[in-house]
């Protein structure tokens, strides 16, 4: 059994999609934030790999073809953005102001807590790009002398966490405007958060897509300044 699963080309993709759909069914049935399809899928796949003693490389051998499509899919985020272009122009000041506030909050809160917890400079710069998309965040971490594998892990954890808690945060802070919801989730939880924003609505999805690009680019500049502060 183990050899078959390890040599299979489609096992990785199949089990990923199957567990995601299972998460979808659970969410529809129980309406609980914990049954987030992405979280259910990741937890279930990790469990299955451990139980059947399939190593990550064998799983990734097939599952990599899912990640392979991430670049063209990100490019396609231009389409919902284009469809909302009038809204984007109308609220340009609010959108840029919101993203800038988000980027500064991210850098400042990581700086403050790194000092409180007494992290090393290396650990601090590893965490600085945690709210931006993996491809940009990896570059930032490397440039500043961080530990890139940890940066990637933290970016993924941030994304999944943001995807799960988004709706609760909106209730807590009374964020009701669809544009503001999209900007908030995209600035805090990059592309994984955007997957959630797409579910909430077209406006949310488009604004979240925009935040990935703008917050990413602002963080490139901001993180290199903040790296000198601690």
């Amino acid at each position: 059994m183990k050899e078959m699963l390890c040599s299979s080309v489609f096992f990785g993709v199949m089990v990923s999609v199957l567990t995601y759909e299972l998460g979808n069914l659970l969410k529809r049935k129980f309406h609980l934030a914990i049954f987030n399809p992405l979280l259910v899928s990741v937890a279930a796949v990790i469990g299955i790999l451990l139980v059947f003693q399939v190593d990550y490389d064998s799983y990734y051998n097939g599952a990599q073809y899912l990640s392979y499509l991430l670049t063209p899919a990100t490019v396609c985020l231009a389409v919902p953005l284009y469809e909302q272009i009038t809204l984007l122009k109308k609220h340009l000041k609010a959108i840029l102001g919101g993203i800038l506030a988000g980027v500064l909050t991210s850098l400042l809160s990581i700086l403050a807590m790194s000092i409180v917890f007494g992290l090393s400079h290396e650990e601090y710069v590893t965490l600085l790009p945690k709210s931006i998309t993996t491809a940009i965040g990896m570059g930032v971490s490397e440039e500043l002398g961080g530990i890139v594998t940890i940066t990637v892990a933290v970016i993924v954890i941030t994304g999944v966490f943001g995807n799960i808690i988004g709706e609760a945060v909106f209730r807590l802070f009374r964020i009701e405007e669809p544009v503001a919801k999209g900007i908030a989730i995209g600035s805090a939880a990059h592309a994984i958060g955007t997957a959630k924003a797409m579910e909430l609505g077209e406006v949310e999805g488009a604004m979240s897509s925009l935040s990935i690009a703008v917050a990413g680019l602002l963080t490139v500049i901001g993180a290199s300044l903040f790296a000198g502060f601690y």
Partner: protein
Amino acid sequence: MKYVRQFLIILLVTFLGEVCKYLIPLPVPASIYGLLLLLGALLAGVIKLDQVKEVSGFLIEIMPLMFIPAAVGLLESWGALSGIFAEVAVITAVSTVLVMGISGIVTQWIIRSERSKKK
């Protein structure tokens, strides 16, 4: 044929994004250049919406699936992360909630103050 043509256009723009990444020495990934190129092409009318709509809709819908392999990769990076996991968990949780809350509040506040100014 419609889907082949749409997929081709998306792949062409993605490839142009890779070309930009190769030529421009900034830590910006090919996907962001591609996103800006496609948006520019749509705004300029070089690419029409119905030339990419269905295939881009499909790719965006299945996008969450594309994050599963990287997240399962936590299995591999656990060794490096476990030493500082408690600190990382607190920092991640607190800062993610703060960033989401503050960027949302600021955006909403500017939208509403502009709206009331107009009235």
